[in-house]
C-alpha cells in the first residue's frame, strides 16, 4: 500500500542527524534533553551583548574597575557573574585616541560568549575571517566606519583559550551618566571593534 505523502512530515537531513545524535547520547546517559533546552534558552535570551555593555559602562565610570579590567579581564568580568563556560580567558583591549582595536577569529569562530552572546553570522563567515587581518581598514569601511589615516588599527585573533572584548572610547558629553544609560550607547559591534560607541542624542 502506498502512503499518502501529502500529510507526512519531513525532517531535513541535518535535523534528522541532530536528533539521531541526541537519541544516541541520551541513551548512553551523556546528555539530558532538558538540559539542552535550558542551554538553548540561555543563549537565545539571557546571554547577549547587554552583558558586555555593562562591563564597558562600568569601566567608563569606575577607574579602579577599568584598571582591573585592563590587568585581569577574566576576574573583572567574572565579578559581574559573567563567566565563560569553556574555561577561556578574557582580555579587554581599550580603544584610545591613537589605536582602534578589532577582534576576529581566523581559525573558526572563537568569540567571548559570556559577554556578547553568540557571534553574528558575518563574524563566522570566511570573508570577515580572512580579510580582517589583511585589510582591517577596508573591512571597517564596509561597516561604515572610516577611521583617520593616522589611527592605528590593531587586530586581535581569538583562540579557544583567549577571547577579546573591545572597550570603545567613552563618547563626549556623557559626564555624570549612570551605568545603565551609558550601557545603552555600547553596541555589540562596538565591542567587536567594527563600530564605535554611539554618540549621546
Amino acid at each position, binding site marked *: 500500500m502506498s502512503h499518502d505523502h501529502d500529510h*507526512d512530515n519531513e525532517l531535513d537531513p541535518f535535523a534528522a542527524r541532530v536528533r539521531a545524535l541526541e537519541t544516541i547520547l541520551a541513551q548512553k546517559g551523556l546528555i539530558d534533553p532538558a538540559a539542552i533546552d535550558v542551554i538553548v534558552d540561555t543563549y537565545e535570551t539571557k546571554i547577549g551583548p547587554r552583558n558586555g555593555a555593562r562591563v564597558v559602562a562600568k569601566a567608563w565610570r569606575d577607574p579602579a574597575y577599568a584598571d582591573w579590567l585592563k590587568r585581569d579581564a577574566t576576574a573583572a568580568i567574572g565579578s559581574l557573574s559573567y563567566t565563560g563556560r569553556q574555561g577561556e580567558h578574557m582580555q579587554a583591549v581599550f580603544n584610545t585616541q591613537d589605536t582602534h582595536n578589532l577582534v576576529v577569529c581566523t581559525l573558526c569562530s572563537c568569540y567571548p560568549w559570556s559577554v556578547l552572546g553568540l557571534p553574528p553570522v558575518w563574524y563566522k563567515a570566511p*570573508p570577515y575571517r580572512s580579510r580582517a587581518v589583511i585589510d582591517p581598514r577596508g573591512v571597517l569601511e564596509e561597516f561604515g566606519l572610516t577611521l583617520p589615516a593616522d589611527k592605528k588599527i590593531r587586530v586581535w585573533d581569538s583562540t579557544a583559550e583567549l577571547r577579546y572584548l573591545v572597550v570603545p572610547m567613552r563618547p563626549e558629553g556623557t559626564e555624570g551618566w549612570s551605568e545603565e544609560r551609558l550601557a545603552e550607547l555600547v553596541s555589540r559591534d562596538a565591542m567587536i571593534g567594527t563600530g564605535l560607541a554611539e554618540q549621546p542624542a
Partner: protein
Amino acid sequence: MSRREELPPGFDEPVFAEPWQAEAFAMTVALHDKGLFSWSEWAQALSSEVKRPGAAADGHDYYEHWLAALESLLASKGLAAKSDVDAMAEAWERAAHATPHGKPILLENDPQRIR
C-alpha cells in the same frame, strides 16, 4: 564583485536559523560541560571543517560545519559511531514520514522500530 558584496550584512539576523542548529550548538556545550572533550579539541574539530574549500562566503552553512565537526569528534572519541548515527537518522526520517502533519515526531512512530 565589489567588496561590499563580499561581506555579508547580517546585522540583526537571528542567532539560529533553524531549531536543529540551536540543538547542535547546545549539545556541544553540554558535552563539553560533562568533560567529554576540551574546548581546544572542539575548536580544532570545528576549524578543520570550516576551512574546507567550498565554505559559503555568507556563512549560511556554518552550523552544517558545526554538526560535521561534532559528529567527527564524537566518532573519534568512540561516543557515537558514524554507522550508528546514520542508522538512527534514517529511523528518525522514517518516523517523520509516518507521523501525521501537525503531530510531534516521535521515534516510536518509526514503522521499522524493533519493539
